[in-house]
């Protein structure tokens, strides 16, 4: 593979404003129930009595997640048509809309919810890393739109050299399942992948 592009998410900076999500929705002209990028809010903790005083360990943090263009994607493996494919040049995973039959197998398999069925089109759709922008040297629209500069995009090796190698915190799955091309700067309150002390507190938004 020539290159593997990936995303960087700074969960310490992200305020959950969802500009990325809306910029994507606007640029890709997505219907109401399809979001190529979603902002997950993971929160938990409570108050404990310590003698006469009460202290809290309440935490909340955001993770802006789109397709992670995994090195070992679950979606392409189950696709019966080959419509869901990984570009050998960029490592970006995309759907060939002329081939997809809308069987939703990729949606069943992906642990990030990246492939989504578009009722209007009768086939699957997903984040393609704004491949046409990347091809002309620009970055994906979500990255450009972030007012906190909490997102970045580039060759994953460069991102890892720059930002580290954390690819998962709760509620994301352990990286071993699909080897996501994702680097996270964990929020100071971040819990490890697999954590159950918190919960997703914006389920209807994602």
């Amino acid at each position, binding site marked *: 593979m020539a290159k593997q592009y990936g995303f960087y998410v700074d969960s310490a900076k992200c305020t959950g404003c969802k500009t990325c999500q809306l910029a994507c929705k606007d640029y890709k002209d997505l219907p109401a129930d399809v979001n190529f990028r979603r902002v*997950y809010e*993971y929160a938990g903790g409570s108050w404990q009595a310590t003698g006469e005083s009460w202290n809290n360990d309440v935490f909340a943090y955001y993770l802006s*997640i789109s397709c992670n263009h995994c090195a070992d994607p*679950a979606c392409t*493996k*189950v*696709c*019966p*048509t*080959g*419509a869901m494919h990984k570009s050998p040049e960029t490592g970006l995973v995309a759907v060939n809309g002329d*081939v*997809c*039959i*809308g*069987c*939703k*197998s990729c949606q*069943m*398999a*992906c*642990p*990030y*919810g990246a492939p989504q*069925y578009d*009722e209007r*089109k*009768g*086939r*699957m759709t997903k984040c393609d890393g704004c491949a046409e922008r990347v091809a002309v040297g620009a970055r994906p629209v979500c990255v450009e739109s972030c007012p906190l500069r909490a997102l970045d995009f580039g060759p994953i090796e460069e991102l890892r050299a720059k930002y580290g190698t954390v690819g998962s915190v*709760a*509620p*994301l*799955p*352990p990286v071993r*399942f*699909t080897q996501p091309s994702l680097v996270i700067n964990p929020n100071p309150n971040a*819990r490890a*992948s*697999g*954590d*159950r002390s*918190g*919960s*997703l507190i914006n*389920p209807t938004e*994602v």
Partner: protein
Amino acid sequence: MGWHEWPLILFTVLAQTAVGAFCWCFAALTLGGLDDAGRARLQRAMLAVWLLAAAGFALSALHLGSPWRGINATFRFLRAPLSNEIVFGSAFVAAGFAGWWAQRRGIGSPGLRQGLLWLTLVLCLAFLASMTAFYLMPTVPTWNTPLTPAAFLLTATIGGSIVAATLFSAAGIEQPRWLREGPVKLAALAVAAAVLVTLAQSASLPAIHSSIHEAALLTPDYGALMGLRFVLLFTVLGLWLRGVWHGRTLAVGTGASYAVVLLLGEMVGRGVFYNLHMTVGLR
């Protein structure tokens, strides 16, 4: 996921039933010592198996967003389980119809038709295996367990046995005894095994969770739905066993109604299966 997957619920239950019924008919044709007339009557009656499987496939197309290009699903044959399922499944139905047609029209030598029957068996087993393989996704912990192949095999046995018994009766096959009593006995064993599989599954669910989902909470009505399923299965099984016990021949209409209720029971179970979908991650 769950009831909205109704095309897949219908497809998997009907297809697995056809697989089970064919296996019984294959056993009868190769090991049953049937006379030529009996063989011919059974092969004619087996049209029901092929119609059942074909109906399943037709219903499965309703699951697709773009059914008119459903043929694309064969593109990754030998590389993706779903492609294998579609190819082996349609070849199974095609071989079955071809065998039925050849027998009716007297096309080909008996040896050739026997060869076709064996080919149909191979396709039938490959179909069931690839259908199972599709659901063993490493990222879907509630499906990626040995209980999934067990559940599919048991549906094939339960549904297949009642359909086969009805076909044997339609073809007037009374002997040997294992064809008269075998289906109900095997179905009874399968229903008992299904109880064990269900208990094993409900015991395993609390251990399956992500940061967002708990498998045990995905189907709050798990107990009630499985209860309904087993009421349906045990009711029909009781009536069926009683008839065989008293030496009564299974009337075709009775067999067909037993089949409908047994398949409904299996469809309730399959609905629960789809409702248990969750991934190791966000969805």
